[in-house]
Protein backbone atom coordinates (compact mmCIF):
# COMPACT_ATOMS: atom_id res chain seq x y z
CA UNK A 1 0.00 0.00 0.00
CA UNK A 2 2.99 2.23 0.68
CA UNK A 3 3.54 2.81 -3.04
CA UNK A 4 -0.06 3.42 -4.02
CA UNK A 5 -1.07 5.88 -1.36
CA UNK A 6 0.47 8.03 1.32
CA UNK A 7 -1.04 8.53 4.76
CA UNK A 8 -2.00 12.11 3.92
CA UNK A 9 -3.82 10.94 0.81
CA UNK A 10 -5.73 8.31 2.79
CA UNK A 11 -6.69 10.93 5.37
CA UNK A 12 -7.94 13.38 2.78
CA UNK A 13 -9.99 10.74 1.02
CA UNK A 14 -11.52 9.87 4.39
CA UNK A 15 -12.49 13.48 5.12
CA UNK A 16 -13.65 14.41 1.64
CA UNK A 17 -15.58 11.22 1.01
CA UNK A 18 -17.30 11.29 4.39
CA UNK A 19 -18.50 14.84 3.86
CA UNK A 20 -19.74 13.86 0.43
CA UNK A 21 -21.79 10.95 1.79
CA UNK A 22 -23.10 12.97 4.73
CA UNK A 23 -24.40 15.59 2.33
CA UNK A 24 -26.17 13.02 0.16
CA UNK A 25 -27.65 11.46 3.29
CA UNK A 26 -28.92 14.82 4.52
CA UNK A 27 -30.54 15.51 1.16
CA UNK A 28 -32.27 12.13 1.15
CA UNK A 29 -33.34 12.68 4.77
CA UNK A 30 -35.11 15.89 3.85
CA UNK A 31 -36.84 14.20 0.96
CA UNK A 32 -37.82 11.20 3.08
CA UNK A 33 -39.11 13.44 5.84
CA UNK A 34 -41.42 15.22 3.41
CA UNK A 35 -42.44 11.93 1.80
CA UNK A 36 -43.46 10.50 5.18
CA UNK A 37 -45.46 13.54 6.15
CA UNK A 38 -47.12 14.12 2.77
CA UNK A 39 -47.42 10.67 1.28
CA UNK A 40 -46.85 7.49 3.25
CA UNK A 41 -48.64 8.50 6.47
CA UNK A 42 -51.07 10.96 4.93
CA UNK A 43 -53.93 8.45 4.55
CA UNK A 44 -55.23 9.08 8.08
CA UNK A 45 -54.91 12.35 9.97
CA UNK A 46 -52.47 12.39 12.87
CA UNK A 47 -54.97 13.47 15.51
CA UNK A 48 -54.26 14.35 19.14
CA UNK A 49 -55.68 11.00 20.07
CA UNK A 50 -53.12 9.21 17.87
CA UNK A 51 -50.32 11.25 19.42
CA UNK A 52 -51.55 10.42 22.93
CA UNK A 53 -51.85 6.78 21.95
CA UNK A 54 -48.20 6.75 20.92
CA UNK A 55 -47.30 8.05 24.36
CA UNK A 56 -49.31 5.29 26.04
CA UNK A 57 -47.42 2.79 23.90
CA UNK A 58 -44.09 4.30 24.98
CA UNK A 59 -44.87 4.72 28.66
CA UNK A 60 -45.51 1.03 29.04
CA UNK A 61 -42.48 -0.02 26.96
CA UNK A 62 -44.62 -2.27 24.76
CA UNK A 63 -41.76 -2.25 22.23
CA UNK A 64 -39.69 -4.43 24.54
CA UNK A 65 -41.95 -7.41 23.89
CA UNK A 66 -43.61 -6.61 20.53
CA UNK A 67 -42.39 -5.49 17.14
CA UNK A 68 -44.00 -2.51 15.44
CA UNK A 69 -43.33 -2.37 11.68
CA UNK A 70 -40.89 -5.18 12.41
CA UNK A 71 -38.75 -3.28 14.92
CA UNK A 72 -38.59 -3.98 18.62
CA UNK A 73 -38.48 -7.21 20.59
CA UNK A 74 -39.30 -10.66 19.27
CA UNK A 75 -41.12 -12.02 22.32
CA UNK A 76 -44.65 -11.17 21.22
CA UNK A 77 -46.54 -10.66 17.95
CA UNK A 78 -46.19 -7.83 15.45
CA UNK A 79 -48.68 -5.04 16.16
CA UNK A 80 -48.15 -2.82 13.11
CA UNK A 81 -50.91 -4.83 11.42
CA UNK A 82 -52.84 -6.08 14.46
CA UNK A 83 -55.91 -4.05 13.59
CA UNK A 84 -55.99 -5.71 10.17
CA UNK A 85 -55.53 -9.10 11.81
CA UNK A 86 -58.48 -8.40 14.08
CA UNK A 87 -60.52 -7.09 11.13
CA UNK A 88 -61.21 -3.75 12.81
CA UNK A 89 -58.89 -1.41 10.96
CA UNK A 90 -61.83 0.48 9.42
CA UNK A 91 -63.94 0.44 12.62
CA UNK A 92 -62.47 2.55 15.44
CA UNK A 93 -65.25 1.65 17.89
CA UNK A 94 -64.81 -2.06 17.36
CA UNK A 95 -61.06 -1.56 17.58
CA UNK A 96 -61.51 0.08 20.97
CA UNK A 97 -63.80 -2.69 22.26
CA UNK A 98 -61.53 -5.48 21.03
CA UNK A 99 -58.40 -3.88 22.44
CA UNK A 100 -60.12 -3.21 25.77
CA UNK A 101 -61.21 -6.83 25.96
CA UNK A 102 -57.65 -7.92 25.18
CA UNK A 103 -55.88 -5.64 27.68
CA UNK A 104 -58.25 -6.56 30.49
CA UNK A 105 -57.89 -10.30 29.91
CA UNK A 106 -54.15 -10.12 30.71
CA UNK A 107 -52.27 -11.80 32.18
CA UNK A 108 -53.83 -15.09 31.19
CA UNK A 109 -51.79 -16.95 33.79
CA UNK A 110 -51.84 -20.06 31.58
CA UNK A 111 -48.90 -22.22 32.59
CA UNK A 112 -46.18 -22.42 29.94
CA UNK A 113 -47.59 -19.56 27.88
CA UNK A 114 -45.87 -16.20 27.50
CA UNK A 115 -47.57 -13.61 29.66
CA UNK A 116 -48.51 -10.08 28.76
CA UNK A 117 -48.64 -7.89 31.89
CA UNK A 118 -51.83 -6.24 33.06
CA UNK A 119 -51.71 -2.54 32.23
CA UNK A 120 -54.20 -0.44 34.12
CA UNK A 121 -55.40 1.84 31.36
CA UNK A 122 -58.41 4.13 31.34
CA UNK A 123 -60.96 3.83 28.55
CA UNK A 124 -59.63 7.00 27.03
CA UNK A 125 -56.08 5.63 26.99
CA UNK A 126 -57.26 2.43 25.34
CA UNK A 127 -59.14 4.42 22.72
CA UNK A 128 -56.01 6.51 22.02
CA UNK A 129 -53.92 3.37 21.78
CA UNK A 130 -56.40 1.81 19.34
CA UNK A 131 -56.37 4.95 17.22
CA UNK A 132 -52.57 4.96 17.23
CA UNK A 133 -52.44 1.34 16.09
CA UNK A 134 -55.00 2.00 13.35
CA UNK A 135 -52.95 4.98 12.23
CA UNK A 136 -49.77 2.88 12.15
CA UNK A 137 -51.58 0.09 10.30
CA UNK A 138 -52.54 2.50 7.53
CA UNK A 139 -48.99 3.66 6.90
CA UNK A 140 -47.68 2.71 3.47
CA UNK A 141 -45.04 0.15 4.43
CA UNK A 142 -44.35 -1.07 0.89
CA UNK A 143 -46.38 -4.21 1.34
CA UNK A 144 -44.78 -5.39 4.58
CA UNK A 145 -45.61 -7.64 6.44
CA UNK A 146 -45.99 -10.40 3.82
CA UNK A 147 -49.22 -11.67 5.39
CA UNK A 148 -51.63 -11.05 8.28
CA UNK A 149 -49.60 -13.21 10.67
CA UNK A 150 -47.22 -10.23 10.82
Amino acid sequence: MREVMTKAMARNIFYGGSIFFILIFLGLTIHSHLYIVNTSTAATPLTDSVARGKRVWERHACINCHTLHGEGAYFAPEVGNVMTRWGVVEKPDDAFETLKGWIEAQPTGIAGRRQMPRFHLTDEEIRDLANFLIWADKTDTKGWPPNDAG
Partner: protein
Amino acid sequence: MKYESQKIAYAYFLVAMILFVVQVSGGLLAGWIYVSPNTLSEIVPFNVVRMLHTNSLVVWLLLGFFGAAYFVIPEEAEREIHSPKLAYLQLAILVLGTAGVVVTYLFDLFNGNLLLGKDGREFLEQPLWVKVGIVVAALMFLYNISMTVLAGRKTAITNVLLIGLWGIAIFFLFAFYNPHNLSLDKMYWWYVVHLWVEGVWELVMASILAYLMLKLTGVDREIVEKWLYVIVATSLFTGILGTGHHYYWIGTPGYWQWIGSIFSSLEVIPFFLMMVFSFVMVWKGSRDHPNKAALLWSLGTTTLAFFGAGVWGFMHTLHGVNYYTHGTQITAAHGHLAFFGAYVSLNLAIFTYAFPILKNRDPYNQVLNMSSFWLMSGGMAFMTFVLTFAGTVQTHLQRVMGQNYMEVQDQLSIFYLMRFGAGVAVVLGAVLFVFAILVPKREVVAPGPDAKLSPAE
Protein backbone atom coordinates in the same frame (compact mmCIF):
# COMPACT_ATOMS: atom_id res chain seq x y z
CA MET B 1 2.04 3.16 33.09
CA LYS B 2 3.86 6.06 31.52
CA TYR B 3 1.37 8.70 32.61
CA GLU B 4 -0.24 8.97 36.02
CA SER B 5 -3.65 9.99 34.65
CA GLN B 6 -3.99 6.76 32.68
CA LYS B 7 -5.08 5.39 36.03
CA ILE B 8 -8.52 6.92 35.39
CA ALA B 9 -9.15 4.04 33.03
CA TYR B 10 -8.99 1.63 35.97
CA ALA B 11 -12.17 3.01 37.55
CA TYR B 12 -14.01 3.09 34.21
CA PHE B 13 -13.04 -0.48 33.37
CA LEU B 14 -14.08 -1.72 36.81
CA VAL B 15 -17.57 -0.24 36.55
CA ALA B 16 -17.82 -1.51 32.98
CA MET B 17 -16.97 -5.06 34.05
CA ILE B 18 -19.56 -4.99 36.83
CA LEU B 19 -22.21 -3.90 34.34
CA PHE B 20 -21.02 -6.54 31.89
CA VAL B 21 -21.82 -9.23 34.43
CA VAL B 22 -25.20 -7.58 35.13
CA GLN B 23 -25.89 -7.44 31.40
CA VAL B 24 -25.23 -11.11 30.67
CA SER B 25 -27.08 -12.19 33.80
CA GLY B 26 -30.06 -10.14 32.59
CA GLY B 27 -29.75 -11.83 29.19
CA LEU B 28 -29.70 -15.21 30.87
CA LEU B 29 -32.88 -14.35 32.78
CA ALA B 30 -34.54 -13.12 29.57
CA GLY B 31 -33.47 -16.36 27.90
CA TRP B 32 -34.94 -18.34 30.79
CA ILE B 33 -38.27 -16.51 30.47
CA TYR B 34 -38.40 -17.77 26.89
CA VAL B 35 -38.01 -21.30 28.24
CA SER B 36 -40.31 -20.94 31.24
CA PRO B 37 -42.56 -17.97 30.50
CA ASN B 38 -44.32 -17.72 33.87
CA THR B 39 -41.04 -16.85 35.62
CA LEU B 40 -41.45 -13.52 37.44
CA SER B 41 -44.11 -12.58 34.89
CA GLU B 42 -46.10 -10.48 37.34
CA ILE B 43 -43.15 -8.98 39.22
CA VAL B 44 -40.53 -8.21 36.60
CA PRO B 45 -42.09 -8.76 33.16
CA PHE B 46 -40.00 -9.65 30.12
CA ASN B 47 -39.93 -6.11 28.75
CA VAL B 48 -38.28 -4.80 31.93
CA VAL B 49 -35.68 -7.57 31.94
CA ARG B 50 -34.94 -6.87 28.30
CA MET B 51 -34.51 -3.13 28.90
CA LEU B 52 -32.03 -3.85 31.68
CA HIS B 53 -30.18 -6.30 29.43
CA THR B 54 -29.84 -3.97 26.44
CA ASN B 55 -29.29 -0.73 28.33
CA SER B 56 -26.59 -2.14 30.57
CA LEU B 57 -24.91 -3.43 27.42
CA VAL B 58 -24.77 -0.01 25.83
CA VAL B 59 -23.71 1.74 29.03
CA TRP B 60 -20.83 -0.60 29.78
CA LEU B 61 -19.57 -0.54 26.22
CA LEU B 62 -19.55 3.26 26.36
CA LEU B 63 -17.79 3.23 29.74
CA GLY B 64 -15.23 0.93 28.19
CA PHE B 65 -14.72 3.35 25.29
CA PHE B 66 -14.33 6.27 27.70
CA GLY B 67 -11.87 4.34 29.80
CA ALA B 68 -9.98 3.27 26.68
CA ALA B 69 -9.74 6.90 25.59
CA TYR B 70 -8.36 7.91 28.99
CA PHE B 71 -5.84 5.10 28.71
CA VAL B 72 -4.78 5.60 25.10
CA ILE B 73 -4.78 9.37 24.76
CA PRO B 74 -2.06 10.28 27.30
CA GLU B 75 0.34 7.90 25.59
CA GLU B 76 -0.55 9.07 22.11
CA ALA B 77 -0.66 12.76 22.95
CA GLU B 78 2.38 12.38 25.22
CA ARG B 79 0.88 14.29 28.11
CA GLU B 80 -1.39 13.88 31.13
CA ILE B 81 -5.19 14.11 30.81
CA HIS B 82 -6.29 17.73 31.07
CA SER B 83 -8.34 17.26 34.26
CA PRO B 84 -8.51 13.90 36.08
CA LYS B 85 -11.02 15.39 38.54
CA LEU B 86 -13.43 16.11 35.72
CA ALA B 87 -13.00 12.55 34.48
CA TYR B 88 -14.00 11.11 37.86
CA LEU B 89 -16.93 13.51 38.11
CA GLN B 90 -18.04 12.32 34.67
CA LEU B 91 -17.91 8.73 35.89
CA ALA B 92 -19.93 9.63 38.99
CA ILE B 93 -22.66 11.21 36.85
CA LEU B 94 -22.83 8.13 34.66
CA VAL B 95 -23.00 5.79 37.64
CA LEU B 96 -25.77 7.87 39.21
CA GLY B 97 -27.70 7.85 35.93
CA THR B 98 -27.29 4.09 35.62
CA ALA B 99 -28.56 3.53 39.15
CA GLY B 100 -31.49 5.85 38.41
CA VAL B 101 -32.34 3.87 35.29
CA VAL B 102 -32.30 0.52 37.07
CA VAL B 103 -34.56 1.74 39.86
CA THR B 104 -36.94 3.49 37.46
CA TYR B 105 -37.35 0.40 35.29
CA LEU B 106 -37.64 -2.12 38.10
CA PHE B 107 -40.27 -0.25 40.09
CA ASP B 108 -41.81 1.57 37.13
CA LEU B 109 -41.44 4.86 38.99
CA PHE B 110 -43.01 8.08 37.70
CA ASN B 111 -44.82 6.27 34.87
CA GLY B 112 -45.86 8.88 32.33
CA ASN B 113 -43.83 11.71 33.83
CA LEU B 114 -42.04 13.44 30.97
CA LEU B 115 -38.90 14.19 32.95
CA LEU B 116 -38.67 11.31 35.40
CA GLY B 117 -40.55 8.41 33.84
CA LYS B 118 -39.12 5.97 31.32
CA ASP B 119 -39.35 6.90 27.66
CA GLY B 120 -40.15 3.63 25.98
CA ARG B 121 -38.46 3.72 22.62
CA GLU B 122 -36.24 0.69 22.13
CA PHE B 123 -32.72 1.24 23.56
CA LEU B 124 -33.60 4.88 24.35
CA GLU B 125 -35.88 4.08 27.29
CA GLN B 126 -33.87 6.17 29.77
CA PRO B 127 -35.88 8.93 31.48
CA LEU B 128 -35.23 12.42 30.14
CA TRP B 129 -33.19 13.46 33.17
CA VAL B 130 -30.79 10.58 32.56
CA LYS B 131 -30.48 11.49 28.88
CA VAL B 132 -29.59 15.03 29.90
CA GLY B 133 -27.07 13.61 32.37
CA ILE B 134 -25.53 11.54 29.60
CA VAL B 135 -25.11 14.64 27.46
CA VAL B 136 -23.53 16.57 30.34
CA ALA B 137 -21.14 13.69 31.01
CA ALA B 138 -20.34 13.43 27.30
CA LEU B 139 -19.56 17.12 27.09
CA MET B 140 -17.25 16.92 30.10
CA PHE B 141 -15.53 13.97 28.49
CA LEU B 142 -15.14 15.59 25.09
CA TYR B 143 -13.84 18.79 26.62
CA ASN B 144 -11.35 16.85 28.69
CA ILE B 145 -9.91 14.70 25.95
CA SER B 146 -10.05 17.38 23.28
CA MET B 147 -8.01 19.72 25.50
CA THR B 148 -5.50 16.96 26.08
CA VAL B 149 -5.14 16.15 22.40
CA LEU B 150 -5.02 19.77 21.28
CA ALA B 151 -2.17 20.50 23.64
CA GLY B 152 -0.22 17.37 22.78
CA ARG B 153 1.06 15.25 19.93
CA LYS B 154 -1.54 14.61 17.26
CA THR B 155 -1.61 11.16 15.74
CA ALA B 156 -4.01 9.46 13.36
CA ILE B 157 -5.14 7.29 16.28
CA THR B 158 -6.17 10.20 18.48
CA ASN B 159 -7.64 11.96 15.48
CA VAL B 160 -9.94 9.11 14.47
CA LEU B 161 -10.75 8.31 18.09
CA LEU B 162 -11.81 11.91 18.71
CA ILE B 163 -13.95 12.06 15.57
CA GLY B 164 -15.63 8.83 16.63
CA LEU B 165 -16.31 10.02 20.15
CA TRP B 166 -17.62 13.40 19.01
CA GLY B 167 -19.84 11.57 16.54
CA ILE B 168 -21.26 9.41 19.33
CA ALA B 169 -22.30 12.54 21.23
CA ILE B 170 -23.68 14.33 18.18
CA PHE B 171 -25.83 11.46 17.00
CA PHE B 172 -27.10 10.88 20.53
CA LEU B 173 -28.79 14.27 20.29
CA PHE B 174 -31.38 12.68 18.00
CA ALA B 175 -32.57 10.74 21.05
CA PHE B 176 -34.22 13.97 22.18
CA TYR B 177 -36.33 14.24 19.03
CA ASN B 178 -39.45 12.15 19.34
CA PRO B 179 -42.07 13.31 16.82
CA HIS B 180 -45.70 12.19 17.06
CA ASN B 181 -45.43 10.71 13.59
CA LEU B 182 -44.27 7.12 14.15
CA SER B 183 -42.51 6.83 10.80
CA LEU B 184 -40.53 10.02 11.39
CA ASP B 185 -39.73 8.80 14.89
CA LYS B 186 -38.36 5.56 13.45
CA MET B 187 -36.37 7.30 10.73
CA TYR B 188 -34.48 9.50 13.19
CA TRP B 189 -34.24 6.77 15.81
CA TRP B 190 -31.86 4.97 13.47
CA TYR B 191 -29.66 8.06 13.42
CA VAL B 192 -28.73 7.08 16.93
CA VAL B 193 -28.80 3.31 16.66
CA HIS B 194 -27.46 2.55 13.18
CA LEU B 195 -25.13 5.53 12.82
CA TRP B 196 -23.64 4.53 16.13
CA VAL B 197 -22.87 0.86 15.62
CA GLU B 198 -22.30 0.99 11.87
CA GLY B 199 -20.75 4.45 11.80
CA VAL B 200 -18.95 6.25 14.56
CA TRP B 201 -18.46 3.25 16.85
CA GLU B 202 -16.49 1.64 14.03
CA LEU B 203 -14.15 4.62 14.16
CA VAL B 204 -13.62 4.03 17.87
CA MET B 205 -13.11 0.34 17.25
CA ALA B 206 -10.63 0.85 14.43
CA SER B 207 -8.55 3.38 16.35
CA ILE B 208 -8.34 1.29 19.51
CA LEU B 209 -7.49 -1.71 17.38
CA ALA B 210 -4.77 0.29 15.64
CA TYR B 211 -3.34 1.23 19.03
CA LEU B 212 -3.36 -2.39 20.16
CA MET B 213 -1.66 -3.52 16.95
CA LEU B 214 0.98 -0.85 17.33
CA LYS B 215 1.76 -2.03 20.86
CA LEU B 216 1.38 -5.76 20.42
CA THR B 217 3.08 -6.30 17.07
CA GLY B 218 5.55 -3.44 16.90
CA VAL B 219 4.71 -2.65 13.28
CA ASP B 220 5.70 0.78 12.00
CA ARG B 221 3.28 3.57 12.96
CA GLU B 222 3.14 4.91 9.39
CA ILE B 223 1.78 1.59 8.14
CA VAL B 224 -0.72 1.18 10.95
CA GLU B 225 -2.09 4.67 10.55
CA LYS B 226 -2.47 4.43 6.79
CA TRP B 227 -4.52 1.28 7.27
CA LEU B 228 -6.55 3.10 9.90
CA TYR B 229 -7.59 5.88 7.52
CA VAL B 230 -8.45 3.42 4.77
CA ILE B 231 -10.58 1.33 7.15
CA VAL B 232 -12.54 4.24 8.58
CA ALA B 233 -13.04 5.73 5.13
CA THR B 234 -14.73 2.52 3.98
CA SER B 235 -16.78 2.50 7.21
CA LEU B 236 -18.34 5.87 6.65
CA PHE B 237 -18.62 5.62 2.87
CA THR B 238 -20.76 2.51 3.25
CA GLY B 239 -22.31 2.91 6.69
CA ILE B 240 -23.96 6.29 6.22
CA LEU B 241 -26.06 5.36 3.20
CA GLY B 242 -26.24 1.82 4.56
CA THR B 243 -28.73 3.21 7.07
CA GLY B 244 -31.13 2.59 4.20
CA HIS B 245 -31.36 -1.09 5.19
CA HIS B 246 -33.64 0.04 8.03
CA TYR B 247 -35.76 2.19 5.74
CA TYR B 248 -37.40 -0.56 3.72
CA TRP B 249 -40.72 -1.02 5.56
CA ILE B 250 -41.32 1.88 7.91
CA GLY B 251 -43.01 4.37 5.62
CA THR B 252 -39.87 5.73 3.95
CA PRO B 253 -39.53 6.07 0.14
CA GLY B 254 -38.95 3.05 -2.09
CA TYR B 255 -35.54 4.14 -3.34
CA TRP B 256 -34.10 3.09 0.03
CA GLN B 257 -34.60 -0.52 -0.99
CA TRP B 258 -31.87 -0.08 -3.60
CA ILE B 259 -29.63 2.37 -1.79
CA GLY B 260 -29.90 0.36 1.43
CA SER B 261 -29.24 -2.98 -0.24
CA ILE B 262 -26.21 -1.78 -2.18
CA PHE B 263 -24.48 0.30 0.47
CA SER B 264 -25.17 -1.98 3.40
CA SER B 265 -23.77 -4.92 1.43
CA LEU B 266 -20.60 -2.88 1.09
CA GLU B 267 -20.56 -2.44 4.88
CA VAL B 268 -18.93 -5.84 4.99
CA ILE B 269 -15.74 -4.25 3.60
CA PRO B 270 -14.57 -2.33 6.70
CA PHE B 271 -15.10 -5.40 8.87
CA PHE B 272 -13.22 -7.53 6.38
CA LEU B 273 -10.41 -4.97 6.27
CA MET B 274 -10.14 -4.85 10.06
CA MET B 275 -9.77 -8.61 10.12
CA VAL B 276 -7.14 -8.60 7.37
CA PHE B 277 -5.38 -5.69 9.06
CA SER B 278 -5.06 -7.45 12.39
CA PHE B 279 -3.74 -10.66 10.85
CA VAL B 280 -1.32 -8.89 8.52
CA MET B 281 0.07 -6.81 11.39
CA VAL B 282 0.66 -9.90 13.49
CA TRP B 283 2.27 -11.60 10.50
CA LYS B 284 4.57 -8.68 9.77
CA GLY B 285 5.24 -7.69 13.34
CA SER B 286 8.60 -8.38 14.88
CA ARG B 287 7.64 -7.96 18.52
CA ASP B 288 6.89 -11.01 20.64
CA HIS B 289 4.72 -9.29 23.18
CA PRO B 290 4.18 -11.24 26.41
CA ASN B 291 0.47 -10.41 26.65
CA LYS B 292 -0.79 -13.25 24.49
CA ALA B 293 -4.31 -12.96 25.88
CA ALA B 294 -4.63 -9.40 24.61
CA LEU B 295 -3.49 -10.58 21.21
CA LEU B 296 -6.06 -13.37 21.24
CA TRP B 297 -8.87 -10.94 22.04
CA SER B 298 -7.63 -8.51 19.37
CA LEU B 299 -7.67 -11.15 16.66
CA GLY B 300 -10.90 -12.53 18.11
CA THR B 301 -12.67 -9.21 17.93
CA THR B 302 -11.90 -8.62 14.26
CA THR B 303 -12.79 -12.19 13.30
CA LEU B 304 -16.04 -12.34 15.24
CA ALA B 305 -17.02 -8.84 14.11
CA PHE B 306 -16.48 -9.93 10.53
CA PHE B 307 -18.81 -12.86 11.05
CA GLY B 308 -21.38 -11.19 13.30
CA ALA B 309 -21.65 -7.83 11.60
CA GLY B 310 -20.34 -8.70 8.16
CA VAL B 311 -21.57 -12.19 7.32
CA TRP B 312 -24.66 -12.29 9.56
CA GLY B 313 -25.47 -8.71 8.62
CA PHE B 314 -25.24 -9.41 4.90
CA MET B 315 -27.40 -12.48 5.34
CA HIS B 316 -30.55 -10.40 5.88
CA THR B 317 -29.64 -7.03 4.43
CA LEU B 318 -30.84 -7.33 0.81
CA HIS B 319 -34.38 -6.02 0.73
CA GLY B 320 -35.73 -9.12 -0.98
CA VAL B 321 -34.47 -11.24 1.93
CA ASN B 322 -35.27 -8.70 4.62
CA TYR B 323 -38.90 -8.65 3.49
CA TYR B 324 -39.18 -12.13 5.01
CA THR B 325 -36.68 -12.03 7.87
CA HIS B 326 -37.35 -8.52 9.21
CA GLY B 327 -37.91 -8.61 12.96
CA THR B 328 -37.47 -12.36 13.45
CA GLN B 329 -35.00 -14.37 15.51
CA ILE B 330 -32.59 -13.89 12.58
CA THR B 331 -32.28 -10.28 13.69
CA ALA B 332 -31.63 -11.37 17.27
CA ALA B 333 -28.94 -13.78 16.09
CA HIS B 334 -27.17 -11.07 14.13
CA GLY B 335 -27.55 -8.47 16.91
CA HIS B 336 -25.86 -10.80 19.38
CA LEU B 337 -22.83 -11.85 17.36
CA ALA B 338 -22.31 -8.36 15.93
CA PHE B 339 -22.32 -6.65 19.32
CA PHE B 340 -20.27 -9.37 20.91
CA GLY B 341 -17.70 -9.63 18.15
CA ALA B 342 -17.20 -5.99 17.45
CA TYR B 343 -17.70 -4.13 20.68
CA VAL B 344 -17.70 -6.56 23.59
CA SER B 345 -14.55 -8.32 22.41
CA LEU B 346 -12.85 -5.05 21.57
CA ASN B 347 -13.46 -3.81 25.09
CA LEU B 348 -12.26 -7.06 26.60
CA ALA B 349 -9.14 -6.79 24.40
CA ILE B 350 -8.23 -3.37 25.70
CA PHE B 351 -9.07 -4.38 29.31
CA THR B 352 -6.80 -7.39 28.93
CA TYR B 353 -4.03 -5.26 27.52
CA ALA B 354 -4.40 -2.40 30.00
CA PHE B 355 -4.95 -4.11 33.35
CA PRO B 356 -1.45 -5.50 33.88
CA ILE B 357 -0.10 -2.05 33.04
CA LEU B 358 -2.59 -0.27 35.27
CA LYS B 359 -1.70 -2.64 38.08
CA ASN B 360 1.96 -2.26 37.27
CA ARG B 361 2.80 -5.93 36.93
CA ASP B 362 3.32 -8.65 34.35
CA PRO B 363 0.36 -10.10 32.46
CA TYR B 364 0.21 -13.26 34.51
CA ASN B 365 -3.41 -14.35 34.34
CA GLN B 366 -3.36 -15.36 30.74
CA VAL B 367 -4.40 -18.97 30.70
CA LEU B 368 -7.60 -18.24 32.58
CA ASN B 369 -8.24 -15.20 30.44
CA MET B 370 -7.75 -17.15 27.23
CA SER B 371 -10.06 -19.90 28.49
CA SER B 372 -12.69 -17.27 29.12
CA PHE B 373 -12.27 -16.11 25.53
CA TRP B 374 -13.07 -19.55 24.19
CA LEU B 375 -15.90 -20.13 26.63
CA MET B 376 -17.58 -16.83 25.85
CA SER B 377 -16.96 -16.90 22.11
CA GLY B 378 -18.05 -20.50 21.89
CA GLY B 379 -21.21 -19.69 23.81
CA MET B 380 -22.03 -16.67 21.68
CA ALA B 381 -21.36 -18.56 18.45
CA PHE B 382 -23.60 -21.39 19.58
CA MET B 383 -26.31 -18.92 20.58
CA THR B 384 -26.05 -17.27 17.18
CA PHE B 385 -26.39 -20.61 15.39
CA VAL B 386 -29.45 -21.77 17.32
CA LEU B 387 -31.16 -18.40 16.95
CA THR B 388 -30.42 -18.53 13.23
CA PHE B 389 -32.09 -21.93 13.01
CA ALA B 390 -35.02 -20.65 15.06
CA GLY B 391 -35.26 -17.61 12.80
CA THR B 392 -35.16 -19.71 9.64
CA VAL B 393 -38.01 -21.92 10.82
CA GLN B 394 -39.92 -18.86 12.02
CA THR B 395 -39.46 -17.05 8.72
CA HIS B 396 -40.71 -20.00 6.77
CA LEU B 397 -43.71 -20.87 8.94
CA GLN B 398 -44.83 -17.34 9.72
CA ARG B 399 -43.77 -15.21 6.79
CA VAL B 400 -44.09 -17.73 3.98
CA MET B 401 -46.82 -20.09 5.23
CA GLY B 402 -48.69 -17.43 7.19
CA GLN B 403 -48.99 -19.38 10.46
CA ASN B 404 -49.97 -17.47 13.57
CA TYR B 405 -47.06 -15.99 15.57
CA MET B 406 -47.70 -17.77 18.86
CA GLU B 407 -48.22 -21.16 17.19
CA VAL B 408 -44.90 -20.76 15.44
CA GLN B 409 -43.14 -19.83 18.67
CA ASP B 410 -44.36 -23.04 20.31
CA GLN B 411 -42.45 -24.97 17.67
CA LEU B 412 -39.19 -23.19 18.43
CA SER B 413 -38.84 -24.20 22.08
CA ILE B 414 -35.92 -26.57 21.49
CA PHE B 415 -33.88 -23.70 20.06
CA TYR B 416 -34.71 -21.46 22.99
CA LEU B 417 -33.62 -24.19 25.39
CA MET B 418 -30.28 -24.44 23.59
CA ARG B 419 -29.95 -20.66 23.61
CA PHE B 420 -30.29 -20.77 27.37
CA GLY B 421 -27.55 -23.38 27.58
CA ALA B 422 -25.30 -21.20 25.46
CA GLY B 423 -26.13 -18.31 27.78
CA VAL B 424 -24.88 -20.27 30.79
CA ALA B 425 -21.53 -20.72 29.04
CA VAL B 426 -21.36 -17.00 28.29
CA VAL B 427 -22.11 -16.00 31.88
CA LEU B 428 -19.49 -18.44 33.19
CA GLY B 429 -17.02 -17.05 30.66
CA ALA B 430 -17.76 -13.49 31.72
CA VAL B 431 -17.28 -14.26 35.39
CA LEU B 432 -14.07 -16.14 34.61
CA PHE B 433 -12.83 -13.15 32.64
CA VAL B 434 -13.42 -10.72 35.49
CA PHE B 435 -11.77 -13.15 37.89
CA ALA B 436 -8.75 -13.57 35.61
CA ILE B 437 -8.34 -9.82 35.29
CA LEU B 438 -8.65 -8.97 38.95
CA VAL B 439 -7.75 -11.84 41.22
CA PRO B 440 -4.78 -14.13 40.41
CA LYS B 441 -1.41 -13.09 41.77
CA ARG B 442 0.65 -15.30 39.47
CA GLU B 443 0.36 -17.24 36.23
CA VAL B 444 -1.73 -20.35 36.77
CA VAL B 445 0.14 -22.43 34.17
CA ALA B 446 3.88 -21.86 33.85
CA PRO B 447 5.01 -21.00 30.30
CA GLY B 448 7.23 -23.48 28.51
CA PRO B 449 11.02 -23.05 28.26
CA ASP B 450 10.76 -21.74 24.69
CA ALA B 451 8.66 -18.77 25.64
CA LYS B 452 11.25 -16.08 25.19
CA LEU B 453 9.57 -12.95 26.42
CA SER B 454 10.51 -9.49 25.32
CA PRO B 455 9.88 -6.71 27.84
CA ALA B 456 6.29 -5.59 28.30
CA GLU B 457 5.23 -2.47 26.45
